[in-house]
Each structure stands twice: as structure tokens, then as C-alpha cells.
């Protein structure tokens, strides 16, 4: 199986083959021999060329996976090479620029600092969320234009609910 992996700014060609319980995985130029055992519904023990890793893998969408190793999650998108190519043709820049800012915990929206069409700088406040009696300001990770605002002050949100879309 040939795939493109996109994770933390990296884009890599990936191939996966199964050989009698073991996987041969190629990431870019690097080849790995991996033995993967499921320990529960989403925790896997991976032995990669002898090294032992206990990882939790949560599915986040059709092609998006959150991989947590010792409590530190990384989001990895695994996409079909053709789909990736199509997206890339449409413009690498545009793809990179789109972002849905989501609530990372359940809570209540206390304030919304932006409106659709606003231009924001990195670090600019977007939404103030209250959860567990603490207020948390959610900021823009980079300079962008606000494309959509999904929430209004007073609204209750679940973890993962979209708050604002930036581009």
C-alpha cells in the first residue's frame, strides 16, 4: 500500500507491506521492520528493529490519526498519493493555509474576539473558552484571515467542536 503521510510539517512517501505478522514500512528513504501487536482497542506495542514503543492510536477522521507516545500526541494524515497530488496541484499554499480551530476541551464560549473577514496576527486572541472554572484564550497559531466563526458567546461546546476557520 502506497501512501503519503503528512505530519507536523513533514510530507513523506510511505509504503506498507505485511509479511506474516510483521510489517515492512518505508518512510521516504528509510525502511523499517515493525512488529505491531494490539493491546487494547487502540493501544499497540510496536517493536521497530528491536526498539519497543507503546503507542495509542486514535482515529480522528477518514485519513487522520492521532498517535500518542507516552502521552504526547502527533496528528498524522495518511492520504492516497493521487489525492495528495490533486491537492498539491490546486496549490500547496492554499492547502497549508486552511485551518479549523477546534475546542480542545468541552466548555462554554465566554468571548469571541474576531469576526469573519478579520486579519489576525500570530498570537491574536480568537475565542475565550471557560472550562473547569478557568478561562482559556485560544489564539491564532499564525497570521491568517478569519473565514468563518462557528460560535457565539454563551454557547456550550464539546471537545473537538469547530470554533473558527482561518486561512
Amino acid at each position, binding site marked *: 500500500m502506497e501512501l503519503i503521510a503528512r505530519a507536523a510539517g513533514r510530507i513523506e512517501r510511505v509504503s506498507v507491506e505485511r509479511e506474516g505478522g510483521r510489517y515492512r514500512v518505508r518512510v521516504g528513504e528509510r525502511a*523499517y521492520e515493525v512488529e505491531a501487536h494490539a493491546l487494547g482497542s*487502540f493501544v499497540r506495542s510496536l517493536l521497530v528493529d528491536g526498539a519497543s*514503543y507503546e503507542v495509542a492510536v486514535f482515529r480522528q477522521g477518514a*485519513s487522520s490519526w492521532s498517535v500518542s507516545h507516552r502521552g504526547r500526541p502527533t496528528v498524522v494524515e495518511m492520504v492516497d498519493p493521487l489525492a495528495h497530488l490533486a491537492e498539491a496541484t490546486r496549490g500547496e499554499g492554499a492547502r497549508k493555509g486552511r485551518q479549523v480551530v477546534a475546542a480542545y476541551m468541552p466548555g462554554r464560549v465566554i468571548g469571541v474576539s474576531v469576526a469573519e473577514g478579520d486579519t489576525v496576527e500570530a498570537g491574536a486572541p480568537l475565542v475565550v473558552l471557560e472550562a473547569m472554572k478557568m478561562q482559556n484564550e485560544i489564539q491564532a497559531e499564525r497570521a491568517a484571515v478569519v473565514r468563518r466563526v462557528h460560535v457565539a458567546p454563551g454557547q456550550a461546546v464539546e471537545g473537538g467542536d469547530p470554533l473558527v476557520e482561518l486561512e
Partner: protein
Amino acid sequence: MKRFRKVLIANRGEIAVRVLRALRELEIASAVIYSEADRDALPVLMADQAFPIGPAPAAESYLRMEAIVDLAVSIGADAIHPGYGFLSERAEFSALCRERGVVFVGPSPEAIGGMGSKVAARRRMIAAGVPVVPGSDGPLDDFDAARACAERIGFPVMLKASAGGGGKGMRVVRAAAELAEAYRLARAEAGASFGDDAVFLERFVERPRHVEIQVLGDLHGKVVSLGERECSLQRRHQKVVEESPSTVVGPELRRRMGEAAVAAASAVGYSNAGTCEFLLDAEGRFYFLEMNTRIQVEHPVTEMVTGLDLVVAQLRVAQGEPLGPEFEGVEPRGHAIEVRLYAEDPFRKFAPSPGRILWLRLPQGPGVRCDAGVYGGSEISIYYDPMIAKLIVWGRDRVEALRRLGRALEELRVEGIRTNVPLFEALLADADFRAGRFDIHWLDRKLGAGELAPVERAGLPDLPILAAAIAHYERAQSVAAVGGGAAGSRSRWRTAARRGGLRSGSWS
């Protein structure tokens, strides 16, 4: 002396579990209360009995004094253990228990009240000979009074607005020549900020450490000191790491602080467990801050270095037992460190990370104690303090304790929520922390300056891609196997993709 047959725990989380353990060891039947959010929490599973007390918000459940005492009476509980937080330091709750004939496992309402008001407590401490931060003890009449007071207590001093709080209207004065101008400005600022220009003056303690003394009193007038805990590592006034002994307290200072703490507690007729908090300056002078009239979160570090069981002791003295010889002349053995494991994300400004714990393995082995309020599958709710567990390590010395802390943190597995473990990893990598060089502002300074970066592990950078690739491959295989036609499977994937897209918060 009355032996308890049943005790009601008016608390939740790890401290409820802690009290349950003590009750079991004393062979006393246990009952807990639970709010709607805590039906499946660990204390409910572990207790002999569990009773609903109301909806999730604390005001409608854990803070319902009358309902809790009514319940205690109706189930035949001899006593109520309040834990920490919630009702533990409410004099009226202690009074209500007494009125209804239920023993409150803690000090009398009079002792709680005697320490409750800061101004009154300060006066009482001065009378009892307990050192407090020297100051004007009230608003200054005029500049002459300010000058006289400053000269008496010595520079640097601090001017504070009487009506102020939270750092506003505070002004440090390092020399006599600066006092007049500072006095003028402080009054003006106080007037402008609080509508009241009264200011007072006290000695400015530079880079103080927070050192507290554990005391324990019985109902027969005896109060003992069980040594100190160092709690200087604080983030926004919240303790993050606690240890015992303090690296800056030796036997002589320990003895003097212990005597001061016993004098403080005795001055209000204190019984049961309590803690006297002190500021300790770089010259070894210490000043009484306040007394916490309850068992503290960090009591296990004292237990680890003394071998005493403080919650068992609380229950015993509440039964009327006199303090035995094991509580006399207690000296610390080895070194203990506690870290508070929270469901919060240190990379996102310590935002709480509520949710379900989907995979949990607590550290074990030599020198490690983990007081958890959760189990694999339990939920960290948004209603309370997001504490997962307290991790306490013991070593023959601080170096061994730190090694064990590092080992235990590596061993811990929590998936499903984020934790503040990376903060402790960063601390363990910090030379000042390892050397015990810090004060109560140190952690906020470090975090503010971005000097506690997450520790980069020498791992396998491709690991997330490998794991995701295998998961993706397996899912594709199983979808192909189960899903039948390609069209059907594709449309399911598309639906999932839409949902996934909405929920993703990362640049994609």
C-alpha cells in the same frame, strides 16, 4: 474514648480514597458521598457504602453542609472526615457536626475560626511569640509613622495598599532616601485604584521559600511537630512539587520552626492535623504566614520520611486517643518528593484536559507511591480540580528520590487525556531544580521566560508515521474485508472524512 464504627467521607477523588485506606486499616466501616458526576468514581467503588448528594456543581453537592450531616446521622456514622478543600476549613461545618453529635475529624470550630481571619491570627501569633513578617500592623497615620516603622524593621520594606490585593498597589523600597517619594506614590496609587489611600508597611522578604510545618494535636492538649515540607515550586500560587526535608532546613532550623508551629497551634487550642506555613528568607529567618486547618494534599511526603500514617493519626486523635511516643522527636529519614499529576496541557498554557482515561498504568516498584483517584476508564470531569494522582517517591537522599521520580514518570502511562508530565520532565532536566535552588517565584519566572522547554526525547522521529501507517493499513484491510463493494466503503469513508475534517484542529 469512643471507637468509631463508621465514618462518612465528605469528599471525592484521591483524598477520599486516601481516607478509605485509613478506615480499612482501622477496621472502621466507610461511607462516601458522590455527586452525579462522580457515580463511577474510584471512591464509590472502594467504599463500603456510597450515597448520592446532588448534582455535579460543588455548591449543590459536596458543599451541602446540612444534607451531609443529615446523611451522617441517618446512616449511623460516628464521624465525618472532610478531606481537604470543600468543607474542610469551614468553622460552621465543624460546629454543625458537633451540634448534631457527629465527630468532625479536624480541629474545633474555635481553632478553625482562630486561624481563619488573617488579621486576628497575626495578632494572636505575635502574642504567642511566633515570628511574623515585621510591619506596621495597620494603616500608617502619616509619613513620620512610615519612616519610624521602616527604621524599626529595616530595609528593604514594602508599602501595600490596605484595601489592595493581588499585587496591586505594592511598592518595594530599598533605602531610606527613597521612602518619602514611594510613600507619596503608593498613597496616590492606592487612592486611585481602591478609593482608599491608606497604606501599611512591612519587611520585604526577597526570594522567599515556602516551608511549612506539619503539626498534630490530640484532644488532651498535646501538639507535636512532624517536620517541614518545602513547597516553593508553585505556579500562580498553586503548589506543583513538594518535598521533605527542605534542602535549606537543617536540624536546628527544623527544631526552631517546629517550636514556632507548635506555639502557633497551641495558641488557638488546636487539635488534629494542621500545617503552619512560613516564608523562609535566604538568611534562614522565617515568618508565619497562615495555618491550614486540615490535612494537606502534600501530607504523603511527611509520611514517607517519618513512617507515620497521618490520616490514621487524624482518626485516632479524633476518637480521643492521646498521641503516642512515636510522634515525639520525629526526624526525617531519607528524602521524599511529591508531584501533582493533573489533566492539563503544559504546552497549551496549562489548559485543563478533561475526558476519559482510556489507558492507564500507574508506576510501582521500590520507593514509589501513587495516590490516585482514578482507574483506567474513569472520567476527569470539568467540574472539579483536574487532579489524576499524586506521585510520591522516596530515596535515601534527594538524588535517589529524583532518579526514582524520573523512572516513575517514564513508567506512567495515561492515554485519552493530556497530563502535566512534560512539566516535571522539564524540571528534572533543570540544573537549579536538581540543586534545590529555587524560591516561590522561581517557577513562574522560568515559565514566563520560556526557560522550561519540553525535553526532546532521543526517540524515533518516524514513530508516529509508522504507527499511523500500520493503523491505516489495518483499517483498510478490515474495511475491504467487511465492507463488500468498493462504492459502499468509499461513501462511508467520505462521511467519516467530513466528520473528521470538522473535528480536526491542526493545520492540514
